[in-house]
């Protein structure tokens, strides 16, 4: 096993800040929606709004980072070895097979991760963000928006996004336990160093 520096300092900062904000937004959001009751509506809406702006800041930084460092290339989808990875996740991981994908700083994401994160970043995140901003600025909609949209549409889209994000989050957390050991992937996301097989 070799120690490989996979996640840079900013990447880890971005990941964990975003994780906290997404969870916080989810909790306050579902509180506002009436699914859970932890806060008063007032507290929940205020927290939700503050966390929204923090998330937007971190996203802007992350987008800047992706493009200036070229990290965005990790998300270029590929069908090569995609089936092997899916097969591994479904069967091989249980049978104790080796992971068909070998991580390297140049290829951090396996084909399945690429696909999932691309969907997350290009579909779910924008869905939540755009519908959320429309929701927040409902009173200031220009006529061309209010012509085609109602608050119900926007709220529906936002809540749908929230459910998708929650489902993603559960899957993401579970997948984090599928490393060599239960917490090895988690540890990598904290320290930045991941143990990879020597066969590289």
């Amino acid at each position, binding site marked *: 096993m070799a120690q490989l520096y996979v996640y840079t300092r900013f990447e880890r900062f971005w990941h964990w800040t975003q994780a906290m904000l997404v969870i916080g937004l989810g909790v306050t959001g579902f509180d*506002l*929606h*009436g699914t859970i009751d932890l806060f008063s*509506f007032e507290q929940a809406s205020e927290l939700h709004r503050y966390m929204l702006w923090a998330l937007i800041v971190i996203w802007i930084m992350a987008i800047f980072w992706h493009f200036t460092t070229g990290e965005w290339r990790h998300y270029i989808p590929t069908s090569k070895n995609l089936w092997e990875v899916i097969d591994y996740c479904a069967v091989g991981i249980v049978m104790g097979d080796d992971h068909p994908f070998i991580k390297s700083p140049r290829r951090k994401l396996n084909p399945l991760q690429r696909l999932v994160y691309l969907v997350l970043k290009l579909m779910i995140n924008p869905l939540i963000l755009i519908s959320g901003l429309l929701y927040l600025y409902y009173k200031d909609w220009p006529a061309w928006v209010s012509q085609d949209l109602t608050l119900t549409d926007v*709220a529906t889209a936002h809540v749908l996004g929230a459910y*998708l994000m929650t489902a993603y989050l559960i*899957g993401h957390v579970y997948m984090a336990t599928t490393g060599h050991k239960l917490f090895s992937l988690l540890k990598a996301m904290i320290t930045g160093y991941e143990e990879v097989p020597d066969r590289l």
Partner: protein
Amino acid sequence: MRKSRIACDRRRLSPASPIKRRRSAPILAIGLLLCLLGGEAGAEATGDHSRFTLMRVLLWLEATGAQVTEVCTQCHNEAQGQIRSTIHWGWEFSEPRTGRIAGKRHILNGFCGGSESLTDPDAANAAFRHSCFACHVSYRRGSTPGFGSWGDAPGPKHAPVSWEALPWSGTGWVSDPWEDEPESEPEPGPNSPSQTDPGNGNADNQTTLAQDAAIDCLVCHDTTGTYHRGPAQSAPMNLIWIAESVGRSSRRTCGNCHFYGGGADGAKHGDLDSSLIQPPREVDVHMSAEGADLTCAGCHNPEGHRLPGSRHAMLARDRDGLDKPSKHYQSHASCESCHGVTPHAERAAPYGARLDAHIDRVACQTCHIPEFARGGVATRLWWDQTSTPPRMVAARNIVPTYRFFNGQMHYTLKSDTIDPDRPVAINRIGGSWQEENARIWPFKVVRARQHLLQEAEPTAIAAVDVQNVPNATANATANATATGNATANALGTSDSYSWMWLPWVWLTDFLGWAPADDSSAQSPVSPPQPPPAPRRTVIETQMFWPITHMVAPAEKALRCDDCHRPNGRLAGLPGFYMPGRDTMPALDRFGLFLVLFMAVTSGLHGLVRILWRRRR
């Protein structure tokens, strides 16, 4: 001292005060202090009524209510015409948007009667004072020179107002003060209020002169707190002192009628009762001495005796905001006219802005009057007038009913056709959530079971389809008969109903107001023939009263959770999506499925991993 008190009142109501209210508070305090010390420094009035020699002489000669009015109008010679043009005189209101003539004279009433005076003869005086009969701003006209039975008063100095000095005698509107209104009165249209031009050329008309003298100035302008319109046997008054002390209206003078509507303190409105004469800040920040200490006229700022802000046609959404010296200046009868259209801007961003974002859909009153009847006086919610004794339900601290309201009340008129088998809507609220000018308003809903006296012979009175009044146009009254007939057929009855309320008859019987009374003999108008024996029907009525007084301190206003929760206060308002209140059942089911699917799949996958590893 008297004079100072009047001056104080005026200072408080200075027209500039609404805008600079906060800054003027210390000045008011100083003024008040000077007044209390009896100094002249606070005096701003240009006239001292107690030093008007002619007035004193005339009143010493004959101190009757009508004589007071004669003296008042010697100088205030436009006042009579102004009064006669107001709703306080005519009890008549032209709905600006429909052109229909409504007002107390024409609408149905779930309170009329004053049954307390029937069940408790000892309380007759008080009940009478507080009943609607005492509240027309007139003396009885027709007899000279005293305009009524003032001559029977014990002495010129202490002339009590006789209840006979009221416009009614006998059953019904025998000496109706409006009956002889000139025929030339313009027909009210949608854009022209029914008011006649004050001081128009009808002054030569004998009727008009008689009506002028019949106006009761003191009921509104008494500052001594001793003037009353109760029966002659009740407390005597010093009319001269009262006349010398006249000043601006106060919470007490307005409240003498408006607090006691429906026959008891607070019975009718719910947000108007005697607790507002000296309210604590918690009850009403505007009228409390610890708050703005406003009188009624502070907001219902009269111009030429005309008071803005009638509930018959309200401004449900004021987009103009702060009053600036303009043609709108006279009307402070909206929250926005003093507080502007961004009233929460002082609150920390973004919270204040979020609250301000509500005011296009939510009336200020909705959040800032969390409950009505908070002053310790119960208001009536249910009144079964058909049982003996009448059964009532009254309560305090009531959570209002909320509806979208565009300011237009649709009153069912006495001339309308109704279906006595169903609950009758005395009024219905105009507006829906789709309307830009409609906002969520708080209401008191009062229900009653009462008698409907159905005339034996159907008359050809105009009838309007109760269900379609919102669609009524300016021509509604003209087209009404045809519509009404169609409706009557649809309802399976061709009768028309005339509205006479049994308690009214009881009360007039009790008080001995028989048409044969000598008071009717004095009347120049001959009493109408007694109608054929009416058929009694028991009906249920329902009425909405907009709630707009008893504004609580800001810290007592509603919080988000009061409405933005599934069982919140607005749970009953359908049609629109409201965050926190409304769920999305289909989406929520799908979302829950998705999340559970993900969790279960992950869990199973992990379980298989663990089990398999162990087996190996």
